[in-house]
């Protein structure tokens, strides 16, 4: 693979002799950048604590990557932005009140176990940030499900603990949600803007969509996974949603908008379920992946033990990604079924 120089100092290497300007680092840093609006929002809504937790995650993730590569004498990849991205994404997936040890251990598990133990970027089966989050959720369930209300003021110190909209919906029903937020339109507004309890970076649909739009415009992600994921959740929660009066199952009576805008669906669908390494490469496979994520999310949200299901659904579908890729092929040019003789 070496480009050899001849005696006349001409470089000889194989075609193609020109390549596009995209590189792994460029893609990863752009994704980091696209998360900036939502990150800024988290600082606005939850105060300096958001910055603190996220920074801890990023530093720990970078350290973990450096340590493994140092110990195994593998080439250093800190500059490619992928460890930074894992840290950033994990931070955005943690509750604002997460203690430092959760941020640090979560990041180390994400980078050192979920990513590097599989061989580093490109070889991991599971989304590292989500693996880190799953680990700390299972290990410290109490801390990981303690939510604080947004303060929307950088000076605020005493954050109040509260429940997330999805938690309220699950435990007490839609009427409680309406009680807390006042009216349906106020509820939608809070969910859309992000002024609600939840993981640091997941609350603002608006700011997340701004970032997602950048990635879509740059074609770093395509619509296939996010749209199929979100649409599946929308349709299924409409069909199997709860009746606002009785609280019981009401066919075709659910409120999909609440489900689409709450929890980590937008963050998950646009920024985690689109992680190249852990999803199918073929477009048709990606739609299957997205629909699968959507179905699992709805099952967990409506009938499972957690109010939120985005994380587990993506991790579960990650297992199927290689299988989907193996089963599915794009249509080969000129392919014909062998005609019967």
């Amino acid at each position, binding site marked *: 693979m070496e480009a050899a120089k001849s005696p006349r100092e*001409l470089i000889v290497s194989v075609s193609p002799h020109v390549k596009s300007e995209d590189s792994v680092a460029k893609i990863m840093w752009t994704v980091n950048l696209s998360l900036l609006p939502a990150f800024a929002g988290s600082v606005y809504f939850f105060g300096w604590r958001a910055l603190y937790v996220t920074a801890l995650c990023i530093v720990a993730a970078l350290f973990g990557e450096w340590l493994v590569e140092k110990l195994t004498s593998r080439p250093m990849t800190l500059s490619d932005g992928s460890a930074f991205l894992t840290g950033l994404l994990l931070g955005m997936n943690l509750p604002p009140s997460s203690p430092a040890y959760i941020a640090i251990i979560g990041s180390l598990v994400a980078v050192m176990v979920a990513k590097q133990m599989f061989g580093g970027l490109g070889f991991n089966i599971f989304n590292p940030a989500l693996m880190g989050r799953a680990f700390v959720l299972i290990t410290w369930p109490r801390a990981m499900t303690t939510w604080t209300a947004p303060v929307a003021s950088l000076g605020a110190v005493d954050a109040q603990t509260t429940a997330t909209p999805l938690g309220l919906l699950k435990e007490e029903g839609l009427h409680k949600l309406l009680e807390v937020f006042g009216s349906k339109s106020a509820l939608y507004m809070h969910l859309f803007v992000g002024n609600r309890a939840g993981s640091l970076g997941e609350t603002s649909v608006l700011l997340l969509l701004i970032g997602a739009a950048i990635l879509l415009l740059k074609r770093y992600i395509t619509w296939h996974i996010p749209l199929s994921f979100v649409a599946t959740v929308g349709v299924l929660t409409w069909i199997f949603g709860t009746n606002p009066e009785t609280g019981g199952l009401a066919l075709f009576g659910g409120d999909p908008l609440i489900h689409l805008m709450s929890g980590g669906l937008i963050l998950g669908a646009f920024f985690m379920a689109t992680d*190249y390494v852990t999803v199918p490469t073929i477009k048709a496979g990606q739609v299957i992946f997205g629909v699968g994520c959507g179905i699992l999310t709805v099952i967990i949200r409506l009938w499972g033990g957690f109010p939120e299901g985005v994380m587990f659904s993506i991790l579960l579908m990650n297992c199927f990604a290689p299988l989907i890729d193996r089963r599915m092929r794009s249509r080969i040019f000129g392919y014909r079924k062998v005609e019967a003789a």
Partner: protein
Amino acid sequence: MALATFKGGIHPPGRKELSKAHPIERAKPPKQVAVPLSQHIGAPCKPVVKPGDTVKLGQVVGEAEAFVSAPVHASVSGKVRAIAEYPNPMGRLVPCVVIESDGEDAWVDLVEDADYLSLSPERIKEKIRQAGIVGMGGATFPTAVKLSPPKEKPVDVVMLNGAECEPYLTADYRLMMERPGEVLEGLKILMRALGVKKGFVGIEDNKPDAVEAMREAAASLADVEVCPLEVKYPQGAEKMLIKAITGREVPNKGGLPMDVGVVVQNVGTALAIHNAVRYGKPLVERVVTVTGRGVAEPRNLMVRVGTMVSEVIEQCGGLTEAAKVISGGPMMGFALSTLEMPVTKGTSGLLALTEGEVVHARDFKPCIRCGRCVDICPMGLMPSMLSVLSEAGQYEECKDYNLFDCFECGSCAYVCPSKRPIVQFVRLAKSMTKPG
């Protein structure tokens, strides 16, 4: 209306502006040429002259013995100095007939045939064969062979390939601009040789003036259609061109254009056919685009076959700070290890890239499964899997991913953000396994 095209493909920067505006100029007559005895896919020629012989311009110096072969001719008049080996663009040594020019350019007797359009198909093919014409787009398949499809594969369409989708190259563009009439005569000859009623010329839409020039020249021809095509690489690959213009798909696993009733020829080849069938002229020269930021004065030159690459580049002001010189285009061309090598019938361009433009493949990274290569592969393959399996030495497994349907267009390696040398991995796997 959407322009005709195929699925997949990429949009590398065209860079045609470097040489586009330069009309074809005749290169200085060379003092000496080295005419390679193997300039095509197929069996090499046997030399029929020996050192000391005097030859005329256009005289046969190497004879084709096999069916898939084409004779080679002296491209200057003068004295045969030696049969010596020179490298070809792929780096292999090829025996060449070295002729020292007497400066006369005395042609062999050429017989003009004014009534060339009423010759029998057999006679046309014979003349094309004798003129040593091969595909001049780069693949250099002997043209006469392409014109002899077996009976069970009737051909109903002839296509001229003027897409010139490789960045930088403008040789075909200039030909269509400057000599549209002769190119179309070549197409008419081809249609007659194959007994075909329908002819197409496919041109990428970034050359609207060429489309216009060809349309004008074809205005009186009811059975010839000039088709503008979407600008994307590899629009000029035979299979892609056929798909874009006729919607027909050449079968995979070794299918040929004639399987869907089509014969494709490059526009340069069409001109050579016209010269051969009408004037009896063998193929002894061709248009070469000399271009790139590494060469002082980019140009389009009519160059004798056998001229040294170094001499051609010298006439364009020489290399400035070239780090890499490529024979052909940047997507599928070959990097040359030396400039002391002859121009062949397949040399469509000489491209000099500067150090800053050269991509070094040595620091490629693992596949991040971004799927870009899968999206753009014009053949619908999974280049990511081909490269990963080949890298791991699992060559046989590559066949499950249609290894042999890859025609090495390089689109996948172009888009790969991990800069993986996918084409190289594919070639390696191909060489380690057998088709089937």
